[in-house]
């Protein structure tokens, strides 16, 4: 792996370029570079990207159209009381920005994404569309068997797209490649938690977004480079308060919202952006049956979020408290997309847990195209001030 001498500013600028490019030029070029290549898009929160990779295809994370996409057609498909991500995603599809995509996976996150899978089938009949169901029971014999078979069906679907078999060997290699990427992302999060002034969240965010469109090997290289650059740079440490952000796992906040939170005096030390990159908590074993290994990791060692059922009442919300403790956070900022049932129904349960252990929190809603950041900045600023005030000995 070649490590260049780019600084964080240059790396971030490149990530910003990728982030702004709604034509997905890099992915298009990747596909065009060799015959037989394909691209499979996926939406939040989790799909086993290893399978796409092992098929010799590029997994492409689609997180809506963001704040700069003008939605014209998409609004004709969605009522005003439905979140924005499905309409901007449809806009991308209808305006041909995803016309190079061979397959599209819609993970089991909520009814909106689920129903979007059907819309996609009707509108783009030539694309391989799969609603990717995941288990909500975490027992190997039930949820596990179901999940292995779902992955097997996905595998066969992808084989059909490329006309090539996905061997166990290829899958094992892909697992190893993604293990490395997950390790690097874990390092990135650990560094930010340790020294948040070295890894501003707006940069971390863009770096993760780059991972949605770049081949994983290139992304791993980019993260490696960033980690080295970030640790080599001197950046001033501010008297900010440390917060965990929660609820941003699907429709994305405008980048300015993240910047506004940082500028208001908060260091974000954990978040739930792009969970696909950190979903599996440890390395997935490379030896053995690859689908079985991915299933075991999903069942027993994966992140928690609203889209997953928590079977144990005592464990409900514990992950958030653990995150607060492990990252030395002083408060939680809940930010959720408007009309997002999963995030907004989860929030009161999480708030109760935080109240029980005296962790302060605030909450607001956003849309991917929210323009006004002043209220967010003020709210977060007041929150940060109050935390500092009360935590001063």
């Amino acid at each position: 792996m070649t490590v260049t001498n780019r600084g964080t500013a240059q790396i971030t600028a490149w990530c910003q370029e990728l982030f702004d490019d709604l034509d997905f030029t890099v992915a298009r070029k990747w596909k065009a570079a060799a015959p037989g290549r394909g691209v499979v898009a996926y939406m939040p929160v989790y799909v086993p990207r290893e399978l796409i990779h092992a098929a010799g295809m590029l997994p492409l994370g689609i997180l809506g159209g963001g704040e700069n996409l003008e939605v014209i057609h998409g609004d004709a498909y969605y009522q005003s009381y439905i979140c924005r991500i499905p309409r901007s995603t449809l806009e991308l599809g209808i305006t041909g920005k995803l016309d190079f995509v061979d397959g599209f996976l819609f993970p089991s996150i909520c009814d909106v994404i689920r129903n979007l899978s059907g819309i996609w089938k009707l509108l783009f009949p030539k694309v391989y569309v799969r609603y990717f169901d995941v288990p909500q029971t975490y027992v190997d014999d039930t949820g596990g068997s179901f999940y292995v078979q779902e992955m097997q069906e996905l595998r066969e679907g992808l084989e059909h797209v490329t006309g090539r078999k996905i061997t166990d060997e290829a899958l094992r290699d892909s697992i190893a490649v993604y293990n490395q990427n997950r390790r690097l992302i874990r390092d990135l999060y650990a560094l930010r938690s340790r020294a948040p002034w070295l890894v501003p969240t707006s940069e971390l965010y863009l770096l993760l977004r780059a991972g949605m469109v770049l081949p994983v090997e290139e992304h791993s290289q980019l993260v490696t480079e960033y980690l080295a650059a970030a640790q080599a740079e001197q950046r001033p440490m501010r008297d900010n308060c440390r917060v965990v952000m929660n609820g941003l796992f699907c429709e994305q906040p405008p980048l300015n919202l993240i910047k506004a939170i940082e500028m208001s005096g908060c260091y974000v030390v954990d978040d739930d952006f792009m969970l696909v990159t950190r979903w599996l908590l440890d390395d997935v074993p490379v030896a053995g049956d690859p689908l079985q290994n991915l299933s075991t990791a999903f069942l027993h060692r994966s992140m928690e979020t609203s889209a997953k059922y928590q079977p144990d009442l005592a464990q409900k919300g514990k992950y958030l408290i653990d995150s607060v403790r492990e990252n030395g956070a002083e408060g939680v900022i809940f930010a959720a997309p408007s009309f997002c049932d999963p995030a907004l129904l989860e929030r009161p349960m999480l708030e109760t847990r935080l109240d029980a252990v005296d962790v302060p929190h605030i909450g607001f809603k956003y849309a991917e195209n929210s323009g006004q950041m002043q209220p967010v900045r003020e709210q977060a600023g007041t929150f940060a001030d109050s935390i500092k005030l009360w935590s001063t000995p």
Partner: protein
Amino acid sequence: MTPKTPAAAPSPREVVKELSMVKQKEMIAANYDAITSAPETGRKVASTFVPGNLNELLMCFDLLNNLPEINAIQNGMKKVSGDYINEAEKRGHSEDVCTYVKADLGMMAKGNIAPNGKPLPRPDVLLLSYTGCFTFMKWFELVRDEYKCPTIMLQVPYQADGKITANMRSYIVKQLKDDVIPTLEKVSGVKFDIDRLREYLRESAKAEDDFVWVMQSAKKKPSPIDAYFGGVYYIGPIFTAFRGTRDATEYYRLLRGEIEERIAKGLGPVTPEGDMKSQKYRLVVEGPPNWTSFREFWKMFYDEGAVVVASSYTKVGGTYDFGFRHDPDHPLETLADYCLGVYTNRSLPMRVDLLENYMREYDADGLLINSIKSCNSFSAGQLMIMREIEKRTGKPGAFIETDLVDPRYFSAANVKNRLESYFQMIDQKRKSVASAA
């Protein structure tokens, strides 16, 4: 089949009209009484959802079946849901989320009073049949927070590709065997007897036959029923705590008899203002009704001579009109297939196919969508459904927006205007078809 009529009946028609209604009212009242008196009788109570409602299985454990959605509907119709929703919002629930959930949580916060005026007991078990709606999962996690009682997750995979696979079915059956049944045994103290389940399933199938007959009677002209406003009453027993009981079988036998008689007399549906006289428009309706202004909403239809001949809402607790019946010979598999087949567990293309089928089979003039503000499961994608149906059938569609139980989102004037212009559109369409012919 003619229903028995008591000798001292005032007039044959009135009695015929009321027998099934009276029967259903008695059944519902008796169930609420059984639930609210559970603390005295010692009976155990399960809470579960309408789609994927495994009433036959719950009965095997002598469990009473309490359905929070039905409580929300009852509270909507009694116009108290608005207060409950306010209460839930005061307690931190977002204005954006499903109002059934908030009506339920608000009701719990305000004493949890059942429609019979008595407090609902704490459930002994929550059976989270996770069928066709993501919100169900969050709803029961929230309820579990309150009651801290055993909660069973029964995951029903979504029919995304328009078919039930062996993997889906065996996953449900395994969950039933390994988790649902053992937990219900533990909670209830009753040993599972598969023959008892078979008996109930046999009973279910009988009621289902008559139920389908009733719903399909709307193919006739004039239609003897309204398959939406009347339909929501007809689904009552089979979608709730009665499927598998003799009472339900009897209810549908009575109902079928009544409809047969209406057909014989050439009568239209019964409305709150008596028999519907003229039937100018035959509609297929997609989406749940509004409950807070149910009567007013219905009146907007029958006043204009619009009868609903088929609706998707009457399939949320099971889709029977394409041949599915509970099968006592494959008791657990049939429960799986039942859950997999409920309307909201069907992919969007399947929903379009079903509605297209209704448009043709019931010779409808158009598709009306009642889009529910707070229900993503139904609403996300309905504009696409409308386009597809218009394209496939050449018949006009219309879109109105209300809510289930939140009175803030029912604007009578808007809905009425929209309906009136829709009926005009149908008239115009007819004229242009006639002049082209």
